[in-house]
Structures are given as C-alpha cells and as structure tokens.
C-alpha cells in the first residue's frame, strides 16, 4: 500500500531576494507500507558556492544520530558531539569520504570536513542501530521539506538549474529542471518513491557487528 502525500503547489509570487529568485513547491512522497516518515532534502545544483565556516551538527543522543540526514556544501564540516553517557565511534566507509573519528566520551566533539561531492553514509562502530547520511552539495541552496512536503529555497541565482529531492528511504532521488528569474519564485513538484530500508551495514573493519548481550532482570 502506498501513502501519497500531496500538498497544493504554492502560487507564483513576485518577490525580491537580492539578485536571485527562489525555488519552491512540494515533494509528493509515495511511501511503502511501514516505511517511517523521514526528512526529505531538496537541493539545487548547477552552480557552486563557498561553504560557510559554521559546521553542521549531528548529535549523538540515545544511540541515534540527530538529525539523520543533513546537507553540507563541499568544503564544509560536520561535527558529531557525543551526548550519551558512553563511547561512540563515528565512521564512514563511503569511498568519497572514508573516515574514522575513534571512540570518544560524552561531552566531547569530533568532526570532519567534506571536500568532495557525494552521499556519505555514517555509522557508529559500537552501536549498529545508528546511521545517518550526509549529502555533500556544490552550494548552500538546499532546504528540508516540511511535514506536508512543502519547501522553499531562497536566494537562488538566475538561470536554469536542476532541483533534486532526496530521502534516505528512496531508492533514487528525483529531479526536475527549474528556471529561476530575478525576484521571482519558480514552482516545482517532485515525486519520491520511498521503500523499506533497514540500513544494515558492517562495522569499520568490514565485519558483522557482534551481538550485544542482554540480561533479563531475573538475572540479578
């Protein structure tokens, strides 16, 4: 069964944001049964911008990466503060940006820069349930769609660009061409098919995770 989330496309409006325009619209998500709703990232490509100095933050809380989907402009950095009272070991084996932060304690932060474009899957070597995705983009023109699928990306330079919608549950991102004119909002509707994914992965040594012992209360 598929759930279809459709939100009415916003009307075109003439607005002025510097020398650029905006891209706005909706992402219609077809979601397979039992697929949890997750964030949808929308981004525009075709031009480059320098990454801001401020890092993107992915917290580690309750054995989860929060948020589990972020975007960063190429050359930007992502930090991973540990908010749990135990060690975490963030790593990635994605070829575009393999890294290993080692194990560090609650209250400590480690991070990495991401110079190359790509989709980087990030895990914890100690907790197999933890996974996140970093999308490294050529510019900072991206946004997260709201619960209804609506989004707006401001300050897009005039020109014809490609806009993408990306979800961790989608097999492929969807895309559309959009023409942006100065001071105007270009409208676009994108469609994503989300399927069930369990994000199963191996640890940083390429091995299956060792099972963690659990003891019932009667054991004590």
């Amino acid at each position, binding site marked *: 069964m598929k759930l279809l989330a459709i939100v009415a496309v916003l009307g075109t409006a003439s607005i002025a944001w510097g020398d650029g325009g905006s891209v706005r619209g909706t992402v219609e998500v077809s979601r397979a049964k039992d697929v949890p709703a997750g964030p949808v990232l929308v981004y525009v490509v075709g031009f480059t911008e320098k990454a801001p100095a401020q890092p993107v933050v992915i917290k580690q809380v309750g054995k989860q990466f929060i948020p589990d989907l972020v975007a960063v402009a190429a050359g930007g950095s992502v930090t991973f503060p540990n908010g749990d009272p135990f060690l975490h070991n963030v790593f990635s084996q994605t070829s575009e940006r*393999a890294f*290993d932060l*080692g*194990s560090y304690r609650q209250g400590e932060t480690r991070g990495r820069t991401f110079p190359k474009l790509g989709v980087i899957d990030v895990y914890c070597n100690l907790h197999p349930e933890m996974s996140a995705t970093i999308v490294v983009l050529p510019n900072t023109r991206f946004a997260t769609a709201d619960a209804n699928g609506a989004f707006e990306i401001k300050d897009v330079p005039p020109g014809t660009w490609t806009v993408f919608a990306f979800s961790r549950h989608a097999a492929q991102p969807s895309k559309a061409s959009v023409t942006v004119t100065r001071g105007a909002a270009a409208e676009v509707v994108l469609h994503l098919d989300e399927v069930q994914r369990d994000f199963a992965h191996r640890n940083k*040594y*390429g091995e299956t995770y060792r099972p963690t012992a659990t003891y019932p209360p009667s054991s004590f």
Partner: protein
Amino acid sequence: MHRVLALTVLAVLVTGGAAHGGRTHFGWLYGTELVPENGTEVETWILEENKKGDNKRDETAFWWSPVFSLTQHLEIAIPIEAAFEDEHDGDARVHFTRWGAEARYRPQSPDPIDAGPFATVVRGGAKRIIEDRAGVRFEADLVASYTSGRVFAEVDLGGITERVPGGGETEFRPSAGVSVLVVRDFRLGVESYGELIVEGGGTSWLVVGPTMSVTSGRFWGAATLGIGLFGLRDAPRLTFGVAL
C-alpha cells in the same frame, strides 16, 4: 622470510578491504598514522640481519607490543623484544633482549584529508636491557610523510643509544621510502634503511629494497627485502598489526 613475503602477497590478492590507522607502509620505517582514539592494536615486527660484519653474524629479532591510543594525537606502546643471535662461534641462542615503553605523537589531525598531504610523527622510547640490569636504551625518531595522489613518500630520521656501565653504543638510523597505491589497500614501493655506528663497537650497514603493504579489515602489514649495500648481505623485515 621469502615464503612469508609470498604468502602475504597471496593474502592481499584474495582479501583487501577496510583501511584504518596505526599502520606503516614500509618494513623498516615507522608510519605517520596512529591508532584511532581509544583504540588498541597488537603490533609485531619480525626482522633479520644476515651475514653482518666480518664474522657474518646472523640475527632474527622479534618485537611484540600492544599499542594504545590515548588521544587523537598520542599513542603508547609497551614492547617486549627477543632475538636469535648466531656469531658462528658455537654459542647461538634465543633470548629476551629488552622491554620498555614508547610514545608516538602526531601533531596533525588523524584524518588524512583534514591534515593535508604533510604529516609527522615524533617517537620516543626508553627500554630496559634485560640481561644487563644497569643498562638502558633510549630511542627516538622524527618521521615525516607526504602524500600526493597514489604516491606516499616518507623520511624517518631515527637513532638509539644504549648506556651500560663502562660503555655504550649510539647509532644513527636514517631511512626513506616511496610507496605507490596499486589497487584498493595494496601498495608497492622501495625503501632504504641504515644503522650507522656513531659510538661504540658494531658494524654499520645500509640496505635498499622493494617493499609492499596491505590493509584488510583489522589487519595491516608491510614487508620489505632490504638488500645490503654495505655491512651485511640482506635485512628482510615483516611488520604487522591487528586491531582489537
């Protein structure tokens, strides 16, 4: 040793895989990578010095140690060393030679992209000489590496000094190597290493030879066949580590 090299090459061809820190790409040179923070590896060296000096002395030495990463920039090792030594005088034997501790400090980020192409490691160690209770040995290395694409070049300027009652020995140990990434985590290269006597007796020697290294899962290893330019016939060496 030649058989070990061949088996290692075979292992590379059938495995390959995840890379991690704490390794060297050369047999005789220290690396500029450290074990990831709060990680532990067991590191092993097996090395030979064959037909050294006028009396054609043969030696096989063994070095074992856990290596603990204390921070992103500092790791320590607590090695114990043993050796088989044959002076061809009828008194060949195997014995424990030294134990002690060493620290390796890398000032740059542990990440090769964040650190950039240039990396350094400073190593210092102090060891007790097991069969001379008043003896002590100090070791130091300054290692610098540069990475450009598939090419990894490294220089290791090291030295040791042994202080024992009534004497001592000091050696300068320069080495350098170039390694090229061939496929996945398999590298081939060439390296040169020497032990040059500065103080005391002994034989100075220098080798140059091919080297290879591999990383696969928890394992990394490097092997070289050093061919003597002077002072000995050859000096092969196998260095490997396994992450715990």
